């Protein structure tokens, strides 16, 4: 009882209040987000769905600290993120966030180990520790022994697992996945989803995942549907706001 009250009184991990994003200005102004309110608690697994152009990618960019809202408030653990500078956002990304992309986005001609090490390099982690952590992360995603292979020598599923290892090697608070299974067949997709579920359940990693596929969204504990720059509350499943 006490512990539950404690978590309640603490600020939620992510909170959006009336967030808008407008591209362009004047007559050409195109609103991508038109007032989003959203709360995501630590340890949740959220699937973000919606047709293209519905604003879900824009919302993910804002949550990923890659973009800033035009207006409204973005609180991360209770701290305002919206007004941060470019470099402060970079610090947010490097210290709190992990990214997985549809196209994997690994560095070509660079070994799996080096790809996984990359975020640690920017964090200034010493070489020996960096190697150890990157190897461990690769082992977690089932790629022990593949350290020296370059992305070109790995299958799509393996590449996405390297990308997952790169995202979790820094022990982020939030894992942002942008259609992580979009380029994979159903068997590989299941592998990836099971990995994400494992990280979510066993390590309490918060996962926010954009997907088109209801099968994949079903892995998540909560689904958010975007339509025309707004969250479609009627389609909210799981825990309501």
């Amino acid at each position, binding site marked *: 009882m006490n512990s539950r009250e404690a978590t309640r009184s603490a600020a939620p991990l992510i909170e959006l209040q009336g967030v808008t994003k407008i591209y362009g200005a004047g007559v050409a102004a195109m609103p991508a987000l038109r007032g989003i309110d959203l709360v995501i608690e630590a340890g949740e697994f959220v699937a973000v769905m919606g047709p293209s152009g519905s604003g879900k990618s824009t919302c993910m960019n804002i949550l990923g600290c890659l973009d800033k809202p035009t207006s409204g408030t973005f609180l991360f653990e209770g701290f305002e993120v919206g007004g941060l500078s470019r470099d402060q956002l970079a610090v947010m990304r*490097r*210290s709190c966030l992990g990214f997985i992309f549809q196209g994997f*986005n690994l560095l070509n*001609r660079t070994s799996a180990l080096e790809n996984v090490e990359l975020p640690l390099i920017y964090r200034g982690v010493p070489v020996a520790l960096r190697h150890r952590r990157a190897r461990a992360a690769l082992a977690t995603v089932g790629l022990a022994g593949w350290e020296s292979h370059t992305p070109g020598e790995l299958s799509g599923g393996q590449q996405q697992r390297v990308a997952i290892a790169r995202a979790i090697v820094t022990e982020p608070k939030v894992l942002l996945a942008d259609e992580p299974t979009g380029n994979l067949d159903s068997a590989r997709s299941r592998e990836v989803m099971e990995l994400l579920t494992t990280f979510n359940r066993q390590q309490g990693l918060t996962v926010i995942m954009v997907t088109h596929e209801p099968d994949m969204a079903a892995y998540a504990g909560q689904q958010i549907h975007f339509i025309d720059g707004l969250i479609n509350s009627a389609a909210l499943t799981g825990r309501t706001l």
Partner: protein
Amino acid sequence: MFWETISLAFREIRRNVLRSSLTILGIVIGVAAVITLVTLGGGATAQVAAEISSLGSNLIQVRAGQGFRGPGRTSGTAKPFKLDDAKAIAQQISGIAAVAPNASRSAQVIAGNTNWSTSITGSTNDFLFVRSWSLANGRSFAESEIRSGKAVCILGATVKRELFGEQDPLGASVRFNTITCQVIGVFEAKGQSSGGNDQDDFILVPLRTLQRRLAGNTDINAIFVSAQDGVSTTKVKEDIERLLRERRRLGEGQDDDFFVRDMQEIMSTLTGTTRILTTLLGAVAAVSLLVGGIGIMNIMLVSVTERTREIGIRLAIGAMEQDVLMQFLVEAVVLSSFGGLFGIAFGLGAAALGAKAMNMPFIFNPGIVALAFVFSGGVGIVFGFFPARKAARLDPIEALRHE
């Protein structure tokens, strides 16, 4: 982090060896040109300076003819000097330490069954002082030998080596024309002059011996004058010119039919040449480094565009602007420094070959090598900055979308 950036730069450069080498070619050529010319110039300067000091810095040369100034009469047709001219200089001009009248002829010299073609110079003992010759062994002329024109001689090191090899020539005889001459001394070797002449290839005999028994006249080709230390050689030179014009009865408006040269004149010719060379070098270096720098900037801009997606990935996973800036800046600097290193290597190699071909000393100049290296690195910083900043300021979202 720093070492990662460096090794990353090396990896990127290795990935595109051909492109990288073509990129740095401008810098290689520029640096190599500068290193070669400066090194060769240094060798030439050192050689001439050594020669001047071996001649004696107070030396003033007086010769008949018009020297190198314009066309006209050569020394062959000009009226030669006589011993009285040398005596007049010694007696009437102040600030003079010694005067050595000088006449010479070439001759085939025979000793035993070897022979050698060389030049015979006739002068006095003052010749040794004025031209800074010292004896390796033996003695100089006795006063009586000079007065009577005795057949004694001092051998230059080359003549001694060619005629006597390792043997001691003192007391031996050498023959040239109809004279049999006793060797009384051997000069210390001086080596080659900047013109490539062997300074040690001559035999010194008393002036009178040469005039009487070899030349058959009383002419003097040249008078070597040594000014006293601390006396302006320019002043002495002007005094000699005035005196000789008088003695040779040259009226107003008539050109000199002799010339007087001091070492300062040679020095100033040399420093003038060096200054022109330095200016030219500066221009060559500036242009080639500018061209090389633009080449690097061009390729770095292409590289930034090609690697937009990579930059996006790096930014998304936590690289700060300065991390990306540093990455591309270091790459540009490593590239241009490589250009500098290759340029230095090629330059030194070319200078070594050139020095050998032109028979000059090869003098390694660490200052210009360091300067060239620092400059080439600087070119990388200057011309790499704009592309690096472009990379650092990319929008991560746009960059990630870039195909």
